[in-house]
């Protein structure tokens, strides 16, 4: 394996994978090694959840692109009542007017202390002088606040946006990020970004990326926490099948949450590239 290329772009997904298992990071992002994921009943459940997530993200994007709300709601109903409820929830919370400036599926590439980073936001908007980041969550499990707090996404998303705003001489003290739980709206999680958080997140990012860059190929070791292997696509490569990674109920939730945070609920490399 070659050294980590200088232009390697860090994202919440690859950082979360490194935090979970350095070897998985190496196999997936440095060696780009496709490997068949275990195909369990639970994995099939993830797939259904991923499809539902893709659908609602697409419909919400359509809403912010200006598609007719009634057509969207009719279409959502064809997917199921839950999808319609989710979409209506978003439409009620964000009634659109001519003056609104929302951008759905916005990608921002930003260097942080000289290190390239990227974030793809579900929704970014400006409202009453505030910059809002919204991330739609459609998981069927209640959010785990501790895990969200520690996640790479929670740190990287506002950090990239704040740095981007700074570059454009825009104040970021009015930056807010919301993890919008479509299934549990009462548990949605919002936080206001500030200078202290920015400094702490930047330090975290620089330290973590430096650690990754300085690792020798042999340094990318498999995690000691076998719970992280439970749903990993490389478990047969590492010879860590279900027998080696037994689980308790709370471990299971922990492992699944970790995958969701890393954007990993799809099975293996199921995402299809555009033609």
């Amino acid at each position, binding site marked *: 394996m070659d050294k980590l290329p200088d*232009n390697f*772009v860090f994202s919440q997904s690859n950082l979360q994978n490194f935090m979970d298992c350095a070897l998985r990071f190496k196999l997936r992002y440095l*060696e780009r*090694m*496709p*490997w*068949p*994921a*275990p*195909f369990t009943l639970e994995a*099939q459940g993830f797939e259904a959840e991923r499809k539902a997530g893709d*659908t609602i993200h*697409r*419909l919400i*994007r*359509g809403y912010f*692109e*200006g*598609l*007719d709300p009634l*057509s*969207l709601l*009719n*279409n959502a109903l*064809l*997917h199921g009542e839950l999808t319609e409820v989710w979409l209506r929830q978003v439409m009620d919370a964000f009634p659109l007017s001519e003056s609104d400036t929302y951008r759905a599926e916005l*990608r*921002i*590439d*930003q*260097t942080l202390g000289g290190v*390239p980073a990227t974030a793809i936001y579900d929704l970014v908007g400006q409202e009453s002088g505030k910059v809002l980041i919204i991330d739609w969550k459609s998981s069927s499990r209640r959010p785990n606040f501790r895990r969200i707090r520690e996640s790479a996404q929670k740190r990287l998303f506002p950090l990239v946006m704040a740095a981007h705003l700074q570059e454009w001489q825009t104040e970021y003290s009015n930056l807010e990020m919301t993890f919008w739980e479509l299934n549990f709206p009462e548990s949605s999680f919002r936080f206001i970004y500030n200078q202290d958080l920015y400094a702490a997140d930047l330090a975290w990012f620089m330290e973590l990326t430096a650690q990754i860059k300085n690792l020798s190929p042999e340094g990318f070791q498999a995690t000691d926490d076998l719970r992280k292997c439970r749903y990993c696509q490389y*478990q*047969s*490569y590492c010879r860590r*099948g279900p027998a080696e990674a037994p689980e308790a109920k709370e471990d299971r939730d922990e492992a699944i949450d970790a995958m969701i945070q890393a954007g990993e609920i799809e099975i*293996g*490399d*199921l995402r*299809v590239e*555009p*033609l």
Partner: protein
Amino acid sequence: MNTAQNAILQGLDGRKTWLQGPAGSGKTSTAVAWLAQRLQKHEAERFLVLTPQRTLWGPYSHLVQTLPFGARQRLELQTISGLSRQMLSLFWPEVMPLAGFDQPQAEPIFLTVDAAQYTMGQLVAPLLDTGRFATITLAPHRLYAQLLDNLNKAALVGFDHTEIGPRLKAAWTGEPAQLQVYDDVQDAVSQFRRHCLSQGLVDFSLQVELFDQVLRKLPIFRQYLRKRYQVLLYDNVEEDPPVFHDFILDWLPDLEEALLLYDEEGGLRSFLSADPVSASRLRKEVSSQEALMLPINSLPCFQKVMKLAENWRGAPTKLTGHGSKFNCLRLLPGKYRFFTELLDGVALEIRQLVSDGNAPEKIAVLSPFVSDVLRFALETRLNTDGIQVQTLRPSAPGLSDPALRNLTTLAVMAYPAWNLPLDKWHLANALAFFIDDLDIVRAQSLAENMGKDESGYFKLSIQGSDLPEQTQQSITELLDWLQGWQNLPDLRAFFSGIFNSLLSRPGFSFHEDPDLGAKTNSLIDSIRRFNDGLPATADLGGAGKAFIQASLQGLIFGLNPGQWQLESGKVLLLPATTFLMRNAPVDYQFWLGIASSQWYQRLEQPLTHPYVLSRNWPVGRPWTSQDELNLSQANLDRLVKGLLRRCKQEVILCHSQYSETGNEERGMMLRLLQSVLKHSREGERA
């Protein structure tokens, strides 16, 4: 960048420009330089780069990598078919009510080529049983492919699919029996379209029609395009079909800037409805027109060869010697009777080039088609010297890969209830392939004694054999695993299961082999895409059996991961058209089998006709043998020029008395090249 390119570059800003020239004249490099300049001043997300196929993204992808990180934001490289698919998904709630489906559809179910062929097969099989297509002898996958091709052409050219049969009939001048076949064609394609509309399936032809007739006319879509992109760079416009040009014609007035690149000798994909004449309409809608006429980085010698080739019409039919006064074109040294001997000569020459320090990826062996036999024969000859070969055969059936073929054999063994055939040869191959240290001779001997138990599972008697204990153990484990398989209906579970719990373990060939892991992964992914293209009512067991059946019939493609990507360090072995469409020059080209007429002749396609089903062919005009001859001549001209323009050092002509299939051929290409070589010698004497 030369002076002409720089002069054009200065005048491009803020305009809509048409830039034309032959291949190798620097159009794309001018466009890349222009794009780089514009990206220094503007957000990349305002730009859209379009090419007819993704293999042409290379120079633009390379540019993206060299840009400062901040400027890389969202420079979008697309094909119009890719864009149409993404946009149909996004705008589906507005498109669907106008699409003509029998029932409202929550989302488009896009059919892969594999699933479309399978679906067509299901609909055509009953027709075959009643004697339809009786005069046609075609492998099933070719029959289905040609039927689908007709639908695609109707959509890409922009006429109703109900006109396919009548147009083909009106152009036919041969035996009257063929007219009935065209009626059968019309029935089959109309039935397929009705099936798609009733099941909510969107094959490629329907995708194009919905994009062309519904989506691009929606005001909301036009508004989206206006907001999303302001600058368009469209390379190789001549390789796209007419309805895509219609879309661009419609869109051009809304754009702030555009640069459209046209290859004067293009139309290489005309068998896929590419239409340079239609593309030329765009020229009239731009504010300026530029041309680059002179090839850059091309030896003057190639210009002379091209000139001679251009003037050729009929010539001697025998290659009379090896003398060539060109330093860029010569015959492979030696005289070859059989094709295998010719390959020996080619391998010898390649070895010499590589040992002289030439990079293997700068050497291309080109042939009208690349068969499994040719690939194997050349690989075998070169691998002994450590020279690797890579092929790109996008239309090769997936099961031509041994790993995938043998995995399929295991599925046949694991699902006895499906009653799928398994012969001893394939069983032996699978055993030898998966079990470490089991050679094919012993595997065949085991397969000879193959039997079945009362549940239909395959049995092998290994007791008393002289196989090593470890090998016996591995075979037993494999058979036990197959028998113990829980028969989960989803075939993906089977392949994932056998890979993860057995084949990746020590004693089996997939152990710690990333390539074989990647292939298994791609097989699982292909099954998912296939399943996605079946109606929601289809049960997974039926889908799994259907996938295996379709694979065995050669209907499954696109299984080889990274099949459109080339790696460095390997000699290329490519069909000539594939090489041309990649538009990536090499230093040395070997033209293999120059006496073959397959270089320029239209494919034998009794159910379709790419030139009759074109916007340029007047409806009702008969297609005559003279048209066929003209087409062959035009194809040959385009091919020879196209190849010469994409060669930097030398073309080596390779000829044997008997072709790969054992025929003695004397096609037009042989005569043309003989004439060129003869003139070179005469020119020298004069």
